[in-house]
């Protein structure tokens, strides 16, 4: 077991290192002269060759690729993301502020998604193939095809513009979070419903269940002890994908609802060509992702010991 965990850990480290190189290479090779962009953002009109050269020196743009990579990676390992090339402020401080908006929203959205998809899947599997089942699967398929940004806009149109029940733009009160959380939560619900549904159906088909029932175990206990845990396995498996889905949705939803979170931060950093900021967001998402996937791999092996050692 320790060997397996060690292998997984090693793999995660290799992947993390790869993501760092990839991120850095991407920004290093991005077209345009970042020094010029930075100088323009900082000094507006005073754009002489001297100023640009000075900026280049200061931001470290005159190094070779590997020099610059190691100079960037060293501090990064201590969670020092450097300073914004535009404002000069530490990236980590701004990033933390952005995360404080994004993280609770993601959590609530995930909660909404589970709160809708679990009961819906249970209802659907009461009579597989019945009208309720077909309805649930149909709604989920439709939901999967609706892009988050469009759903967000339609919700704004209905609840903020037409009915004027909820605010649409900003993040100053909890009421501002309702529509964005709903937008993301509905998307999560759509993608989870079918997975939970087939999880339950598969769990019900386990060959030992008739024997358990004949021993007089109540239907309730069967559901709790034998069906629910088994149905949870595929949900845990797709959790990594779900997280990706959430992060992608968050970017768009934050932009639509004007929330100052990670997504808005990323988009404005790209537009300003603020490389340290962009790098920080990309590396951070990759880090979260690799850690979550590592945890999934581990949990997976703990709850289902049949899953074997090393499949690449």
């Amino acid at each position, binding site marked *: 077991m320790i060997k397996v965990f060690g292998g997984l850990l090693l*793999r995660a480290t*290799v992947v993390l290192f790869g993501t760092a190189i990839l991120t850095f290479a991407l920004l290093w090779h*991005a077209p345009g002269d970042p020094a010029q962009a930075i100088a323009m953002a900082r000094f507006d009109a005073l754009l002489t060759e001297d100023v640009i050269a000075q900026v280049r020196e200061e931001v470290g743009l005159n190094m070779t690729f590997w020099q610059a990579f190691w100079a960037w990676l060293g501090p990064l390992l201590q969670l020092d993301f450097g300073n914004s090339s535009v404002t000069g402020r530490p990236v980590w401080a701004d990033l933390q502020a952005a995360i404080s908006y994004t993280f609770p929203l993601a959590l609530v959205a995930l909660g909404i998604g589970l709160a809708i998809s679990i009961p819906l899947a249970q209802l659907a599997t009461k009579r597989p193939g019945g009208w309720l089942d077909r309805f649930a699967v149909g709604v989920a398929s439709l939901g999967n095809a609706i892009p988050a940004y469009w759903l967000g806009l339609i919700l704004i149109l209905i609840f903020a*513009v037409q009915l004027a029940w909820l605010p649409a733009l900003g993040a100053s009160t909890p009421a501002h979070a309702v529509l964005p959380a709903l937008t993301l939560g509905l998307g999560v619900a759509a993608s989870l419903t079918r997975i939970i549904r087939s999880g339950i159906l598969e769990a019900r088909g386990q060959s030992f269940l008739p024997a358990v029932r004949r021993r007089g175990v109540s239907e309730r206990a069967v559901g709790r002890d034998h069906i629910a845990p088994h149905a949870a396995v595929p949900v845990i498996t797709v959790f990594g994908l779900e997280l990706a889905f959430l992060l*992608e949705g968050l970017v768009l939803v934050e932009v639509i609802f004007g929330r100052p979170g990670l997504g808005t931060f990323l988009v404005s950093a790209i537009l300003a060509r603020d490389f340290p900021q962009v790098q920080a967001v990309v590396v951070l998402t990759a880090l979260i992702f690799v850690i979550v*996937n590592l945890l999934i791999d581990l949990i997976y092996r703990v709850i289902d010991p049949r899953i074997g050692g090393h499949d*690449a």
Partner: protein
Amino acid sequence: MMRSVVILVVGFVLFAGFGPLLAPYDPTAIDIPNRLSPPSAQFLLGTDALGRDILSRLLHGARWSLGLAFLISVISLIIGTAIGLLAALGGKTADWLAMRTTDTFLAFPELVAALVIAGLMGASTWSLIFALSVTGWMRYARVARGIGLSVQSRGYVVQARLAGLPGWSVARWHYLPSLIPSLTVVWTGMFARAILGISALGFLGFGIQPPNPEWGAMLLDARVHMRSTPLQMVWPGLAVVFCVLAINLTGDALRDALAKDGTHE
């Protein structure tokens, strides 16, 4: 079972190919006196802020959205299959390298990575194609590797090798038939994702640039006029939902058929 995919593709080709011919107006013709007009007999779905006919833009937009999504999903299919087969057949080191590369690319949420790439390269059609292709090949690689490994040890492949058939011939006659069904399922999923990706990047302003009619970019324009002409925002979204739903349902049907066949990995 492949028939449903063929019907889908032919349907989309007709939609993208002939749809624009049905467009009543030039999709980029500016007509300021008729700006932001509601749906009427003259403009069936109304006009946008520059007086351009929305129906015409929607029909022409199909060419951008579906055509580019097709191109992107095929490019990533080729990259992914090549890397997957390299991993399966190229020996241990190649396998390790190829799979760690795949893991590394998978460590970024696709759309976030595509947004960063397209945004930094500068908004253009080429950077859009590059960004979405380079972030979309990983699933193909995993599936192709899995099938490659399982086919490799089958008797008929070993026989063919021993009989001295050239490598490309073994690949053509013994690997391809096993690869096609599963890769087609992955492809339908990635085709739908590409449509969503194109419109999402278009909506954020990093995709197809104006005045070209693209559904995501149309949504971006429409958003500003949400109060005066709310319906303008509905149409491009419906077009995306319709196409993605059609692809996903085809993909589901194909997957079910393959599961029954027992040939799906």
